């Protein structure tokens, strides 16, 4: 190879360096790719967590509901067999009856009481603020504490409630041992614990109503009760609506107080859906059957939520915002 | 080439019809240029494109001769005052003002000195450690100004900065801004829909309608020589009286010797002549009108007449107050503006 060729080769070598525009272009491309990836990287931890711990378990549960399995033996495909078994089991109807009774009474009593208390405690005086705080305390403490406090208060021999009934000349009640009463005792405890939340939400919704509306109503000689039904109630109805949904879902998932106060008894009188799922899953190891019940609970919650959003969107379209 | 120049700028959102099309605009260095127009005319969009907050779909924008394409908003040597001030709510007045300086790593000593200077300039020394929520509207406005001034920009962009203030404060800050402009000698580009603000502060007014420049010029030229009906009716309060030429009798046309092609003519309320029907001044055609509303404003009064040719306003600087009833109104020939079918002025 001559000198000249060497030189030529050297010359040829120089352009091999990446031409500047190209380097810039690649840099730009990388930067653009990084920018495009940013939102995905940011949502990834949350979305992955949800997929692994919420979405996947739900799918797993639906799949499981088609099998018979006791956790040790082989899994047997039964299709809708678990559901068939479910619907032919008289105990299931009892459990569902209990669940709906608990849900309906807890929600309606809570909402009505909370409305009354919210109207009563609406004004921002010192006493009212203090009482609102007191009502709220049960909400921030553990259901474990609430359940034991009430189990003790409701103790049929030594409990304070029966003592007070006796003082008032009434006979004692077997609050947690009488199959006809136990469910109502559950409802009392649930209402007592959740009332504070409902009250403060409603009070804050009422505070959001412009006072001018009441002033205008007063100038129109509106009576207080009428003002409540024509102004307060319509204005807080979105909140009330939302609160009802929250209360319904909370009632459907009741477990702690049942497990701690009655264990579902006496004779299944307080056995509700989640507690029953737990029993079948963790005590009787009928995982497919328990999963089928889980699917049912999911449908219940889904229907309520869908009804809520359906009604909400209809309101927006036809009703005009309150 | 100094100042700001827009060449063939177009802005469209999505695939829609462009809101601004092929716009050429020159803003002279050191001027107080007001972009004036009704809402939706594109004035804010133009300002935001100059700032780099919105990207033009086509065309070029130059600031001091430099093509701004690909230059980030922070690097354009501009400062902006927003309509709602956009003060950082979690920062104190001082932190608000020095945020921009910190971001370009101005040394602490210089930073302190500059902040100190502007704070004194706008009179906020005692409020320096307060958060914006504890300031009045006027004080917030001044923080926003200080935050712009401290960066020593070549160009100040202001997007309706006075619209959230009450009338009295607005008048005061108007004069403050004029002073500030003279003191700093920087270019001000100011967006407003209020012609009073434009006339009082601007050295150059750009009147916009539907994304197009209808007229650009000094306040005087815009006021005294409107080139079209839109300009004529947008500037001045109350606006120019406009009547259709054909509504005037043939006699009037001959009195006024209107140029060919005149479709409508206008006269400013301050040139409205009010008479009782006797002793008509030479060269004035009066027509019957009923006084329907009267605003006595101390040094002057504004009257609203209902005539067969439409509403006519009169602005009378002094003299006796006109009583409600029937009058004759009109204007002298030398104060008439003539417009053709398309609304362009005939000179």
């Amino acid at each position, binding site marked *: 190879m001559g000198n000249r060729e060497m030189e030529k080769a050297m010359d040829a070598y120089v352009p091999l360096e990446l031409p500047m525009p190209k380097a810039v272009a690649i840099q730009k491309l990388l930067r653009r790719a990084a920018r495009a990836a940013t939102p995905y990287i*940011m949502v990834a931890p*949350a979305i992955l967590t*949800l997929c692994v711990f919420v979405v996947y378990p739900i799918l797993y549960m639906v799949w*499981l509901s088609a099998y018979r399995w006791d956790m040790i033996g082989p899994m047997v495909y039964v299709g809708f067999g678990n559901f068939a078994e479910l619907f032919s089991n008289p105990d299931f109807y009892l459990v569902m009856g209990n669940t709906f009774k608990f849900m309906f009474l807890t929600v309606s009593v809570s909402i009505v009481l909370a409305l009354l208390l919210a109207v009563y405690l609406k004004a921002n005086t010192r006493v009212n603020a203090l009482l609102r705080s007191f009502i709220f305390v049960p909400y921030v403490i553990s259901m474990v504490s609430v359940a034991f406090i009430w189990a003790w208060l409701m103790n049929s021999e030594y409990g304070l409630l029966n003592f007070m009934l006796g003082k008032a000349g009434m006979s004692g009640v077997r609050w947690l041992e009488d199959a006809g009463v136990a469910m109502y005792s559950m409802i009392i405890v649930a209402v007592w614990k959740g009332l504070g939340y409902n009250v403060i*939400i409603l009070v804050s919704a009422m505070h959001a109503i412009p006072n001018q509306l009441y002033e205008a109503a007063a100038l129109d000689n509106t009576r207080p009760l009428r003002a409540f039904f024509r102004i307060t109630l319509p204005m807080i109805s979105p909140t009330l609506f939302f609160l009802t949904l929250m209360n319904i879902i909370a009632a459907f998932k009741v*477990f702690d107080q049942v497990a701690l106060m009655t264990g579902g008894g006496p004779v299944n009188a307080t056995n509700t859906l989640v507690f029953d799922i737990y029993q079948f899953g963790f005590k009787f190891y009928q995982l497919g059957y328990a*999963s089928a019940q889980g699917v049912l609970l*999911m449908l219940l*919650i889904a229907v309520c939520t869908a009804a809520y959003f359906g009604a909400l969107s209809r309101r927006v379209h036809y009703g005009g915002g309150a | 080439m100094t100042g700001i120049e827009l060449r063939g700028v177009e802005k469209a959102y999505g695939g829609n019809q462009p809101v601004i099309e092929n716009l050429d605009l020159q803003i002279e260095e050191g001027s107080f240029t007001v972009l004036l127009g009704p809402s939706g005319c594109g004035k804010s969009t133009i300002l935001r494109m100059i700032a780099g907050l919105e990207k033009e779909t086509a065309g070029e924008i130059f600031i001091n001769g430099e093509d701004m394409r690909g230059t980030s908003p922070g690097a354009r040597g501009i400062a902006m005052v927003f309509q709602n001030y956009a003060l950082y709510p*979690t920062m104190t007045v001082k932190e608000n003002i020095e945020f921009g300086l910190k971001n370009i790593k101005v040394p602490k000593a210089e930073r302190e000195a500059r902040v100190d200077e502007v704070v004194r300039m706008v009179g906020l020394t005692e409020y320096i450690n307060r958060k914006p929520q504890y300031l009045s509207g006027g004080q917030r406005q001044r923080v926003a100004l200080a935050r712009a001034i401290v960066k020593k920009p070549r160009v100040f962009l202001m997007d309706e900065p006075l619209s959230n203030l009450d009338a009295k404060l607005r008048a005061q800050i108007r004069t403050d801004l004029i002073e500030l402009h003279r003191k700093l000698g920087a270019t001000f580009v100011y967006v407003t829909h209020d012609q009073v603000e434009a006339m009082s502060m601007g050295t150059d007014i750009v009147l916009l309608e539907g994304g197009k420049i209808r007229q650009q010029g000094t306040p005087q030229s815009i006021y005294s020589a409107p080139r079209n009906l839109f300009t004529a009716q947008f500037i001045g309060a109350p606006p120019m009286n406009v009547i259709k030429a054909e509504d005037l009798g043939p006699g009037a046309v001959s009195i006024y010797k209107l140029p060919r092609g005149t479709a409508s003519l206008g006269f400013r309320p301050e040139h409205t002549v009010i008479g009782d029907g006797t002793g008509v001044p030479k060269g004035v055609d009066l027509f019957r009108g009923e006084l329907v509303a009267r605003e006595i404003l101390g040094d002057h009064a504004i009257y609203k007449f209902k005539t067969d040719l439409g509403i006519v306003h009169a602005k009378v600087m002094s003299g006796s107050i006109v009583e409600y009833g029937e009058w004759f109104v009109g204007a002298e020939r030398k104060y008439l503006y003539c417009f053709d079918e398309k609304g362009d002025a005939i000179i």
Partner: protein
Amino acid sequence: MRVQMPAFRRASGGACRTAVNFLIFAVFFIPFYWMFLTAIKNLGQTLQTPPTFWVARAHWENFNRVFEAIPFFSMLKNNAIMTFGIMICQFFTVIPAAYAFARFKFKGGGFLFGLTLATMMIPAQLVFLPLFLMFSKMGMVNSYASLILPWATSPFAIFMLRQAFKQVPQELIEAAKLDNANEWKIIFKLMLPIARPTIITLGLITFILNWNDYFWPFVLTTDNTVRTLPVGITSLNIVDGGVKYHILMAGNLLLVAPVLVVFLFAQKQIIKAFTYMGGK
């Protein structure tokens, strides 16, 4: 100006209100007083009829019985590990996700946000069975990971924080851009400080709900070494020869006291936090 009530209602209102106020107070105070009183009674006083409403000498030794019956402090520690573990995880998963959902337009973003919303209504009580099976397959039952990981993010918190980020006016971000702030500066100097009250509020809610949680640690743990306090206290309920209510109430008091103290000092903040939760 307040709307005037008719005169007759004002006159009778005072006495009536006092009575109702007292009733409300009684219903929500007496149960707590009774818990406290029982916690310092001895067995005899507890079972006495008629019950006494005051004790001359407090039996603080009841608390020692609690410490003997359950590994109280290790359970307290477990409670703290679970609660703060969840809070720390949520801090790192919720903030970036909420920010991305609020400020970026990206392909699939709507779908992913919809997914997040859809999971918002799903309670632990719905997925505990499959989750337990998952963890038991991986041999992770009775581990801190199984207590913390399922709650490492919160769709509700993402939703609320996204709202807070969305409410930051666009003008502010533009002003920051004109001030030469880059994306990180905008996040850390502008957005996070503005969203701070929301983040604190969400933290408070997460703390209270998880500190008190009984259901999840109950189904996921069988071993006292990882069990939390709410679960631990329940074992005081199952004592041979009938429930010793004075011991149970002493344990209960220990469980409630920290939350009550926090509530006493931060009640305004806490009530505001939960009000906020119902606001949307």
